[in-house]
């Protein structure tokens, strides 16, 4: 283990720097086609991917892996990244910060990763920020949603190595408010996870909806600790407050449990407007099947029926063929994260960190979820994910989105400098 000395890698690094310098020297000429590919990228492109592969959320790791594996197979079959072979290694992130940090260090320092991707937990993403600055390799976050990562760590602390390809809490909080303002509901309540994610999303939802539709009341909050299996007391709390609408960022298995128990308690008969920002996750839709009521507002980080264009439809078909499964949103973000690296490396003509970061900043690329642009200031991918109303469809064994509403990210994502009311929606322009 000790033999893998610094010297060799330093040597390689030096070589890469020279290569990058030559690339820059070649001027503003945009490298195109095979020339760029064959001339620049040396050795395999290695991506270290970590996701949760154990415990109650292990299913998410499996979904990540499906998307990523597919991207790797496709890319390598088509000649790799700029002619170089793509290699991906997976590790279990668990939920503990030290494990995520150890994985990142292993990938970069021991395995020799050029890029990192994955990460489910917000706490882990935040903990990884200083580590990525030290390791100096780009990290593409594919699931963790905390806005602090991009606002605080990337924008304010200048950890430029971090990018996020999935939608953050803005989609769950702000976008939901834009949808909610057009609903005939004036009193809202929530059952949400008793941790930062729940508090933040509900906070954003309240804040934005309050501005969009003054007079809206927020009448009850019931917080469910991580791992709750019995939501009946929470459901009672909400029904006592008699709201018009229920907003809930419960997710994964807990959302399934909550929905079943709410249905049994007759909640959907009393409360007509229900918004589930992560309800469009495949595990939730499939887990609930026909038990998911109709006319519930759901969204996610991606939904496989949007956008309805050839690229997405072909991808979904290919995914289904490969895995006998519809793609979950983490499958898409995982898949696209690999393609984002591919696009950036090929644009930069190098896998050198600095060059790739520069290429990623402001980069526009096409993905199954539609066109994505990495915002220069905070490295957040700007793309739209629909909000939709659930409905049954004979083609699918689960509920899908019927009517869809798309809130453009420019309209509902917080903006730099992330300070003061002007940074938060609604925006004047």
């Amino acid at each position, binding site marked *: 283990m000790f033999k893998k000395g610094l010297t060799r890698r330093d040597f390689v690094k030096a070589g890469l720097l020279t290569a990058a310098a030559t690339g820059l020297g070649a001027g503003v000429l945009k490298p195109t086609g095979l020339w760029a590919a064959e001339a620049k990228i040396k050795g395999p492109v290695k991506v270290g991917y970590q996701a949760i*592969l*154990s*415990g*109650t*959320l*292990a*299913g*998410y*790791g*499996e*979904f990540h892996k499906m998307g990523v594996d597919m991207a790797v197979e496709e890319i390598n079959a088509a000649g790799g990244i700029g002619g170089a072979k793509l290699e991906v290694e997976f590790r279990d992130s668990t939920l503990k910060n030290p494990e995520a940090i150890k994985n990142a260090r292993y990938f970069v320092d021991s395995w020799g990763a050029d890029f990192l991707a994955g990460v489910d937990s917000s706490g882990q993403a935040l903990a990884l920020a200083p580590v990525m600055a030290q390791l100096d390799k780009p990290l593409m976050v594919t699931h963790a949603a905390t806005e602090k990562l991009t606002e605080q760590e990337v924008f304010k602390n200048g950890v430029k190595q971090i990018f996020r390809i999935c939608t953050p809490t803005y989609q769950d909080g702000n976008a939901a408010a834009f949808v909610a303002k057009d609903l005939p509901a004036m009193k809202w309540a929530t059952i949400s996870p*008793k941790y930062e994610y729940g508090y933040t999303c509900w906070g954003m939802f309240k804040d934005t909806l309050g501005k969009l539709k003054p007079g809206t009341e927020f009448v009850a*909050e*019931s*917080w469910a*600790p991580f*791992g709750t*299996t*019995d939501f*009946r*007391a*929470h459901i*009672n*709390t909400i*029904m*006592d407050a008699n709201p018009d609408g229920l907003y809930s960022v419960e997710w*994964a*298995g807990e959302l*399934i*449990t909550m929905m*079943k*128990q709410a249905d*049994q*308690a*007759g909640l959907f*008969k009393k409360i007509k407007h229900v918004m589930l920002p992560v309800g469009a996750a495949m*595990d939730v839709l*499939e*887990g*609930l*099947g026909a*038990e998911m009521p109709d006319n519930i507002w759901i969204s996610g980080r991606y939904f496989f029926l949007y956008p309805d264009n050839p690229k997405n439809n072909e991808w979904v078909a290919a995914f289904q063929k490969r895995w006998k499964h519809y793609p979950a949103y983490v499958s898409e973000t995982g898949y696209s994260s690999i393609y984002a690296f591919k696009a950036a490396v090929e644009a930069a003509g190098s896998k050198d960190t600095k060059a790739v970061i520069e290429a990623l900043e402001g980069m526009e690329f096409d993905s199954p979820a539609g066109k994505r642009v990495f915002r220069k200031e905070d490295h957040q991918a700007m793309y739209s994910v629909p909000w939709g109303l659930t409905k049954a469809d004979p083609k699918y064994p689960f509920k899908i989105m019927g009517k869809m509403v798309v809130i453009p990210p420019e309209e509902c994502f917080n903006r730099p400098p992330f300070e003061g009311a002007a940074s938060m929606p609604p925006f004047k322009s």
Partner: protein
Amino acid sequence: MLESLIHVCLAGLSKGMFIWLVASGLTLIFGVLGVLNFAHGSFYMLGAYFCYTLLSMFSDNFWLGLALGPLCVCAVGFVVERFFLRYVYHLHLPYQLLLTFAFVIIFDNLVKILWGGGSIGSPTVTGMAGSVSIAGRLFPTYSLFIMAVGPLVALGLWLMLEKTWAGRIIRAASSDREMASALGVRVPALYTGVFVFGTWLGAMGGGLAVPYVGLLTPGMGEGIIIDAFVVAVIGGLGSLKGAFLGALIIGLLSSFGTRFIPSFDMFLIFILMAGVLLWRPQGFFGEAS
């Protein structure tokens, strides 16, 4: 307000009875064998998975799954006791706890490998999918069923321990192992029997959880085992009567807490647990030593 109170009560009672179903096996095993079984949560999980698999095989017949699933888990319990646990009874506490802890890790991962890491939404029970109207609000029929099963299990255990020959032997062995052995009871066989029976109770809890929680996940046993520990402790370790009461208290406390103290948390439950351990470690029904 009254309807709310009634429903908070009902939610608490059903939750309490649900925890009792799992805690009863844990308590029985501790009472007789003196081993606090971390793997009891795994038996709960295995019970749920076996029950789910069997019911899907038999065209969603929940009752058939519930009858057969826990029996399969009993076989697992038998192996655990007969070939592993038996050899650590005489050892210090850490060895016993860590042995059962090792099984938690192993079973969690085996389930992940065999059934996949994702969560499985489980079907509802035919005839119990709906709800009944109580005090102007709906309450799930299946929760009522759980509330009925809990006391039935308690009654059954009581009858078995107090009125049957096997029960007398179990009580004798739990109060004095040497004495029972001197009276000609085959203590090792008895221990295996009690462990397997306790396993069955835990697995039944898991089977009944399939429609109650509505979800199966690998690692689902780790949450419930802490609840069951708390209940077993505040009832006085090894006391079935105490565990029954403890389960009711925890169920009602968390239900009322969630409703009326918004900041309510497991903090209060653990304070209760510590308080009982400090001032009445023998539980509600135990004699002061």
